[in-house]
């Protein structure tokens, strides 16, 4: 078999798919550096662009995405055709569905509605510029991470949540659609493809067609992944550089190269968006952005039991950085980090919240901050969350006792599990010892747990182990979380020595 350009592309796609899977599974392996485990997310240009627009910063390794944009401005959407694992999975799907499905001129011609992805990009970047970062909803790299983190991993962790089914359902829908039309998502919806498409229009190296030898036979249209029509005025913004067209050309008239002398000189066709639609979309985005931000979420509207992972920035800053990739969730050894659906509103859809019935925040673990590609969760020192001999520097909430459900409080039944589990030293849970009588009139001694709020880190181990099923008798609220000075209930004590008494 002759090695053709297409084969190199398939090799690259396979390698990157395995890299994606390998890195995904290494998210939870603390031997792998966190930045490496989330490298695919740092490579994603939309991570950089959306964070830069929403929070005016390029945290950690996100600047690498800008290099991908530079490369795209030279050689086109190579990322889409050669790297993107969601593209590869769709590719695989249409390959499985058979050649009679995927190699049709009818399905692989350009359609005006493919311009929708530029509208999607405009809306998402507009929202980001107004402070709410939601590119991750449709950005393929976070989307794929999330589908695995929220939809697949919880299945063997026993921590499935509704958001996981939505996240995985989105992936399933994308793959099913690609069985009908090759790379339907890439062509119609992908905001990353749209962004790369804008830069690809500048590329000096692209598919070129020799004018004198091309017979206009349309063979090149049949296997075209991007529906970019190498036959006519080549739509370089749509081309995934899959290079299928090169080898099917019976006249050897197609090249992937800088412009040669005999090449067709063509204008790059416009994006089909139109000024009117552009302005209308921009205006509509500006109107909708505040609604998205406050609808049931934000600092004011989020549920009191929406506990953010340790090291999270304050809510506004957090939402401007979180790309909802679920890397934190996939990295969590106890499975406590769930994908949100409702507790933090529309703006918080798919953002990480802790479900203490699924797990707890392990005191010395800082993995979620290590893997977060945008530092929406900051990198913490391993001691930061621990309260040994002093209150913890980083807390995520405070536990509250529900005396109506607690066994020793409500039912005169001895139980000390929350106190036993409490990992702070001194413990944030103490006992009030009382004598009581059981039904036979026998005197029993009860140790009733009482919380010392200033020592509690909100780790949730008490709630996780509480024997009261369903709603535990001790539950963590977000109040007292160190990330936000507005969400405090205790008086701040700066110097204890000067206090009266």
């Amino acid at each position, binding site marked *: 078999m002759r090695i053709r350009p297409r084969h190199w592309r398939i090799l690259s796609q396979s390698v990157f798919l395995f890299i994606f899977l390998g890195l995904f599974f290494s998210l939870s392996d603390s031997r792998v550096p966190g930045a490496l485990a989330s490298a695919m997310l740092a490579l994603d240009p939309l991570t950089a662009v959306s964070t830069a627009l929403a929070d005016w*910063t390029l945290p950690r390794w996100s600047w690498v995405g800008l290099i991908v*944009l530079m490369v795209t401005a030279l050689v086109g959407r190579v990322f889409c055709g050669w790297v993107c694992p969601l593209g590869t999975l769709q590719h695989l799907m249409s390959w499985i569905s058979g050649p009679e499905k995927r190699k049709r001129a009818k399905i692989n011609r350009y359609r005006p509605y493919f311009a929708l992805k530029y509208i999607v990009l405009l809306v998402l970047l507009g929202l980001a510029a107004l402070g709410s970062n939601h590119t991750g909803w449709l950005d393929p790299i976070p989307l794929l991470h999330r589908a695995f983190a929220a939809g697949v991993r919880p299945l063997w962790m026993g921590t499935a949540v509704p958001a996981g089914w939505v996240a995985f359902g989105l992936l399933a829908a994308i793959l099913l659609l690609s069985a009908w039309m090759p790379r339907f998502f890439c062509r119609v919806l992908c905001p990353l493809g749209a962004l790369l498409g804008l830069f690809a229009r500048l590329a000096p190296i692209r598919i070129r067609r020799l004018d004198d030898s091309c017979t206009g036979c349309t063979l090149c249209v049949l296997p075209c992944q991007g529906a970019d029509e190498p036959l006519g005025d080549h739509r370089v913004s749509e081309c995934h550089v899959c290079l299928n067209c090169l080898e099917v050309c019976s006249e050897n008239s197609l090249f992937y190269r800088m412009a040669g002398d005999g090449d067709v000189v063509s204008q790059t066709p416009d994006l089909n968006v139109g000024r009117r639609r552009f302005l209308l979309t921009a205006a509509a985005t500006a109107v909708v952005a505040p609604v998205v931000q406050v609808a049931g979420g934000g600092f004011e509207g989020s549920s009191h039991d929406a506990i953010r992972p340790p090291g999270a920035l304050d809510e506004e800053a957090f939402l401007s950085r979180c790309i909802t990739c679920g890397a934190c969730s996939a990295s969590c050894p106890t499975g406590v980090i769930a994908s949100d659906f409702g507790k933090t509103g529309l703006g918080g859809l798919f953002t990480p919240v802790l479900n203490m019935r699924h797990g707890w925040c392990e005191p010395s673990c800082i993995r979620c901050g290590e893997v977060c590609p945008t530092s929406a969760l900051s990198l913490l020192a391993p001691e930061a969350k621990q309260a040994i001999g002093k209150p913890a520097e980083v807390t995520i909430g405070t536990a509250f006792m529900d005396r109506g459900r607690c066994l020793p409080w409500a039912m005169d039944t001895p139980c000390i599990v929350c106190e036993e589990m409490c990992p702070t030293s001194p413990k944030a849970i103490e006992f009030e010892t009382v004598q009581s009588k059981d039904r036979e009139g026998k005197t029993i001694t009860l140790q009733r747990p009482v919380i010392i709020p200033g020592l509690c880190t909100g780790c949730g181990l008490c709630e996780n182990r509480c024997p009261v099923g369903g709603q535990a008798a001790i539950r963590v609220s977000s109040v007292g979380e160190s990330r936000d000075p507005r969400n405090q209930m205790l008086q701040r004590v700066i110097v204890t020595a000067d206090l009266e008494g």
Partner: protein
Amino acid sequence: MKETPDAVKAYIAISRRKLIGTWGPAAIAGLALGGTGFALHGRQGRHTPPLPDSALALTDWRMDPDDRRLAIAGGGGPAENLRRALGAMGGIGAFVKQGDKVAIKPNCAWDRRPQQAANTNPDLVAELVRQCLAAGASKVTVLDNSCHDPGRAFDRSGIAASVKEAGGVCAHQNNVSTEVRNLGGSVLGSWEVLRPIVEADRVINVPIVKHHSLSRVTVGMKNWMGAIVGSRPNLHQRLAQACAELGDAFRPTLTVVDATRILTGGGPTGGSLAQVKNTDLLAVATDPVAGDAWGASLLGIEPQDMPLLAIAERLGVGNSDWRSVEISV
């Protein structure tokens, strides 16, 4: 795939114009992206860290830190009482100079009428504004961070109308901004302070004497609670400490203790006229602790029963033995 020799030639023979035309846009995009990367990499972003304790401290508005006097007047109604007590202290001219910006801090926290004695008497506030303006003050701002809706509190208390008539300006948390100041202490640290106070040349505290369920009585030092903006409810876990530290941080030019009517129960909001006592008294003090002690005495509370006064004395705010510094009028 086989390259045609023509195509190879085309590459070698490319003109400079064509080279720039082909590579230029990509090069410009690359430079722009690189510049963006350098500009934004590692920036802090919008995350707001806790208020910095590196903020400035407040100005000391006292004329003379060693001046510790208290003048009491009664029987003439709030305006006349103020004129007499101020006269005994040397007149307003000893405290407010030509061109001074003056901030007056009454208690205007509640949606209550003057008769209910939850807010400082409006006639007293108005007379104080007039006196300051007569002494040459360039601007007099009467302000509070009200607990009820500030618009209603300023209207119902009568303060909005009387201050306007006297030529002053009213300000509250909804119509002026704040500035971060480090109030120091062991439980305060940095707080947002209403800007007219931060910017004032002279500050006059005009509290009213009221019952309070936790501190027993609220007079002057607790009144500073209305000058700051933030999680004030949290300060009630160590209220005496917090109020004494507020007294340490805010050093007013004068404290005018309003006891035209005092609230003997149900404070600090009150409401029932049965709990209001008409005393028709007033004290002007340069010693805030003496002012508070005198106010407490009207409710039959002695200094030793109020931890707030002991802490304030220890912090050097003043002297609770008001009888030793009293000037009778």
